[in-house]
């Protein structure tokens, strides 16, 4: 991750003159890594919910938790960030099926989710609080940290050793952050993540395939020749 990211470019573009825009676009594109696969061409996806700071955070999170290696492309190349954005912009993010009446109490862990915030509000507040922690600790926001520093932050969030000064509880934020990254990797690609079924290919999950009646004996204790099918492949 270079210090000059898309966020700087976009902020600069707003502040800068029209005349400088075109070369900056070319420069930004030149910095974008080549997509891992042709279908991953949308390297600068549009966001429906995330603002610039949040997008930078989520992209850094996705690429740190799902780094590129011989097993999968990196998180942003399989659309984990896109999945998260769409989930937060959609009904779930806005609190669908969530009982939202007060009074609000922290409760015991055994009582489950007690935040007065919708998932989108919690995500937004959590990113801001995490970046506040990162600025205080490292002098930079999460997306500008080194890999080692990011690892420290995620470990701190996952163990609740990091606490937020503004009182936002860490545990529900981390639980949501982690769950949505996993959803972005393993849910059906119709939701924007798991691009090219990279998550399913990682484990050999065949996806939305309809029938195994014959396979159950045929592939007993044998590797199933999985070329996963998604809902859109079958629609």
């Amino acid at each position: 991750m270079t210090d000059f990211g898309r966020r700087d470019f976009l902020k600069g573009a707003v502040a800068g003159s029209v005349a400088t825009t075109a070369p900056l676009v070319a420069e930004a594109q030149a910095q974008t890594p080549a997509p891992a696969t042709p279908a991953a061409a949308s390297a600068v996806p549009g966001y429906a919910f995330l603002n610039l700071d949040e997008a930078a955070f989520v992209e850094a999170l996705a690429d740190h938790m799902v780094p590129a290696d011989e097993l999968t492309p990196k998180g942003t190349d399989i659309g984990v960030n896109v999945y998260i954005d769409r989930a937060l912009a959609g009904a779930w993010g806005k609190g669908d099926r969530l009982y939202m009446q007060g009074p609000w109490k922290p409760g015991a862990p055994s009582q489950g989710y007690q935040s007065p915030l919708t998932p989108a509000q919690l995500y937004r507040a959590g990113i801001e609080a995490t970046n506040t922690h990162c600025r205080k600790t490292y002098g930079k926001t999460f997306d500008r940290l080194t890999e080692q520093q990011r690892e420290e932050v995620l470990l701190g969030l996952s163990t609740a050793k990091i606490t937020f000064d503004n009182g936002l509880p860490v545990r529900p934020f981390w639980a949501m952050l982690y769950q949505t990254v996993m959803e972005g990797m393993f849910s059906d690609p119709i939701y924007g993540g798991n691009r090219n079924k990279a998550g399913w290919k990682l484990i050999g999950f065949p996806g939305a395939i309809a029938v195994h009646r014959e396979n159950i004996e045929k592939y007993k204790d044998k590797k199933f020749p999985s070329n996963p099918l998604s809902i859109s492949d079958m629609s």
Partner: protein
Amino acid sequence: MVTKLKEVDVVVVGLGWTGGILSKELAEAGLKVVALERGAMRSTEKDYSVPNIRDELRYVVRHDLMQNTARDTITVRNSPSQEALPMRRLGSFLPGEVVGGSAVHWSGHTWRWTDMEFKVRSNYEERYGKNFIPADMTIQDWGITYDELEPYYDKFEYTAAISGKAGNIKGAIQPGGNPFEAPRAREYPLPPLTPILASEMFTDAAKNMGYHPFPRPSANASRAYTNPDGSKFGACQYCGYCQRFGCEANAKGSPHITVIPIAMKNPNFELRTHSWVTKVLKDTDGKKVTGVTYTNILNGEEFEQPAGMVLLCAYAINNVHLMLLSGVGEPYDPVAQKGVIGKNYCYQTGAGATLFFEGRHFNPFMNAGGSNATMDDFNINWNFDRGPHKFVGAYNVSGGFNTVLPIGYRPVPRGTPQWGKAWKAATAKWYQTAMNISASGSVMANRYNCYDLDPTYRNAFGQPLMRMTFDYQPNEHRMGEHAAKVVNDIAKSMNPTHLNEATARTLPWTAVPYQSTHNTGGTIMGTNPRESALNKYLQSWDCHNLFVVGANVFPHNASYNPTGPVGALAYWTADAIKKYVRDPAPLVAA
């Protein structure tokens, strides 16, 4: 402004297994039946078809077929001293909200509960003495016997297309079946499902240790089947999307493909969907009910539906809630130990191990809802002496899979990092190599585990939420320790490459994550009105034209899944009601 409708013979509240069975039976008996279902109509053809039904995010994670907690939920706490807070989204259990109810998304595990449960207090007192049962353990006999229920179990099993192997036909032990089961009149309607590698390995290991494993009976049709009512089933496709999903093959025994369409063809029956029942109405003298009020949730319009008889057939929790909201029966008071409505809420417990075998291919995406082998050596087997282990109750142990999909199921050895390259490598390496062995355990009633109305929180209709007070007791902790050891001993005998051992559950019950949709009690059946809400025919002791059907009638919870006795008791109650209509009076003298 409440519109009063024309009186009908029977109003059925909730249209799942129990409501479906009773609607069909009573409409066929000539009664005019109206069913009020808060959910929508969905069909196999339009809603449960491939590929759209194959969506873990939508159905498992986002609860598409489940009760919407934005509108109505419960509050939860572990003890009376704690402040209850709303279960703001579903977690530990998942009541369905659709025509067909939870029986659309169930896995199909169907058991016959025996006299070990129905005579629970008598059994333990007789064997171990009165002092063996802790003072605060409010277990009691159910007032019914296995022999009375046997024909009704049979009827339900043949209706729901249960695949299995009998272990005891009229007293003769059958090879390959469960030798501990109570005698049944005949075989299951369908042979067992094709076993998967995990259930075969568990079966071999359990047999080697001297146990008696058998294929789990379940409502997944092992081949095409037409039930005695003429309802047609396809053969199970082992698609791996069973629990939380509707079945695209019509291979899962569900009311929306059996009893409900039959009722709907009967001119005596009418279904009103999107109809939310808010109250059961009582006569001025309180001896009878007169009908229900409900809201059409499509437009908010309120109705009164007068009826000669009211049958509460909603999800177990919601039946109890309606009783409390309607003031039928005396609410239970755990301090004074008086009253009955809300009494003896129970849940289940368990312990599970994950075994990793390098080089094996378990294909965890190929299974039916009931693809596992089970053993009852520590369950309905009195030869297992509870005395030295000091617990009341039982557990079954099983090995196999049921709907393990990748957002929720990616087993790795304990200690594996949760993200990054090492996590990815471990996830890829172990996913195919893992299987589970788990114990499912009973929960005995306790005086403080109960329901009442929450003093603070309200639902979308302005009514108090139901408050659930529940925690596991030392009895369950002791059983959990025994179960975890048995599970781990079997697992170790199989020499896995890695073993994530089972541990006894000793922490408080939690509202997350998912555990089981086996909530029981609250309006329990029994032998007298001081200790129970209903008589053995599930008829209210207080209002004789009110029947309450579902797992809410169980005075305690066994290790088995509840749907077998839920379905059998629905047929049993249907027969009782057919007699009742000829002479409408209490069927048991109080």
